[in-house]
Each structure stands twice: as structure tokens, then as C-alpha cells.
């Protein structure tokens, strides 16, 4: 019974992984891509790890899977945040449909929004 629930959670996790990759391809600029892919892939891989823990229970593999999942959940938002700050300081422009940029106004001098063209 618990094993069946574990398999269902693994399937849901893999599905979210694919949706994150599709979001990575479809969204128009770095910041939206980072947003979509980080959320979906983090929950997807965490789901795979929780599913492995449910199938194997308290054995060597289950505990390691759980530790790996907790580690991903703690470090992945930090990595995404660092990449986003790096992109902002690097000077990558935002998509032309962006409506407000308070960070650029306060820290970088002007709004980092792509104008015209495209």
C-alpha cells in the first residue's frame, strides 16, 4: 500500500520535472525561466526522493534519499537567488512586457527593461 503511494509520488515528481523543462523553453526572459524551472524541478526531484523513501522505508537507501531531498530543498532556492542577482548585475535586460523594476531604480540607476524592437 505504502509502496503504491510511493510510486504515484514518483510519477507526479517526474511529471513536474517535465513541466519545469517546458517552462524553461517557453518563457521569454531569464528571470521568468529561472522562476518556472526552479520551482517545478525542485518539487519534482524532492517528490522522487520522497517516493524512494516511502518504497524502501528506514533502510540505508531510504534515509539517504530523505537527506538528499532535504538538501535539495535547502540549497536550490539559494542557487536560484544567486543566479538571479548575478544576471541583474550582469545587465541582462528584462522582457518588454515587464511593468515595474524597483531593483533597477534603487541599485543600478535605471530600469533594466527592454524597450522597442522584439
Amino acid at each position, binding site marked *: 500500500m505504502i509502496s503504491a503511494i510511493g510510486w504515484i509520488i514518483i510519477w507526479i515528481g517526474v511529471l513536474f520535472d517535465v513541466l519545469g523543462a517546458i517552462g524553461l523553453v517557453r518563457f521569454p526572459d531569464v528571470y521568468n525561466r529561472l522562476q518556472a524551472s526552479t520551482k517545478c524541478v525542485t518539487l519534482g526531484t524532492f517528490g522522487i526522493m520522497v517516493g524512494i523513501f516511502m518504497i524502501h522505508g528506514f533502510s540505508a537507501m531510504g534515509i539517504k534519499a530523505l537527506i538528499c531531498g532535504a538538501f535539495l530543498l535547502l540549497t536550490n*532556492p539559494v542557487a536560484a537567488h544567486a543566479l538571479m542577482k548575478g544576471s*541583474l548585475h550582469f545587465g541582462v535586460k528584462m522582457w518588454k512586457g515587464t511593468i*515595474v523594476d*524597483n531593483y533597477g531604480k534603487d541599485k543600478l540607476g535605471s530600469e533594466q527593461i527592454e524597450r522597442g524592437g522584439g
Partner: protein
Amino acid sequence: MRYIIYFITGFILLLLLTWSTNIDHLIAGAAVVLVGTVLFGGYFTDRPLKFLQLHRIVVFAIYVPIFVWYMVKANIDVAYRALHPERPIKPGIVKIRTTLKTDIARVFLANSITLTPGTMTCDIDGDILYIHWIWVQSEDLEEASRIIASRFEVFLRRIFE
């Protein structure tokens, strides 16, 4: 004091990772954890025993399922935006102000904001957080703080302060 707590925590983590009670493993592991304690114990939190108080653990146990529920909702939301043929997004970076005081509470608030619907932390500057929002509902500072941060601050203040 904090060095002893750090040593015990690291040793428990190592036991979980190796999952064996062989005496060689225990001795070698204790030596490695001791080196780590001497090198990095100074960066550990000031009052580690604070986190063993019962009410903090209870609030944390309530917080985790709510957080997982917000995460699932966030993913369905993002998946809807990615699969919709017209891509209904209206992104922007807004400022919010947090009322949390300690550093570790702010770190957990930033991570929680990153993993929940449509919002993502760009930078922290004192008590001002810059948030990238995929569907901007309000550009006002107080209004945005109320929408984004207040639902987590209630819990995090009781856990970490």
C-alpha cells in the same frame, strides 16, 4: 557549549549517512567530525539549545505541511502559465518590508518566498526584500508586503525569534 552541540549534530548526520555501527566506521567518523568542529564550529548559531524548546518544534511541525501545500499550489500555477498558449504573465520586481529581526529567520523567509506561487527573492538589503513577481498585483510597498510575506511571518516569528 556550541562546539559540543555541533559535534553531536554532525555525528548523528554521519551515522544516518553511513548507516552502519561498525567500530572502525565510528572511530574514523568521530575523527573527521572533530576536525570539522574545530574548523567550522565558530560559525554555528549562538544559542543552539533555543531550538529544542517544545513550542518551537510544534509550530515547525505545523508549518511544514502548510509549506508543502503552498509549494504544490505554486507548481500547478506555474505549469498552467507554461502550458497556456498565450502565456498569461505580467512580471515585475517589487519591494517589500519584513518585520523579522534575526538573520536565520530572514533566510528562511526568502527561501519560502522563492518556492511559493509566482514570487522569487532577488536581493535582501536590511529589512527590504526585492521580489520578482510573475503576476504583479500591487506595486505599493505595504500592500505587497501584506500579500506576499505576512502568511509566513506569523509562523517564522514563533519558530526563530
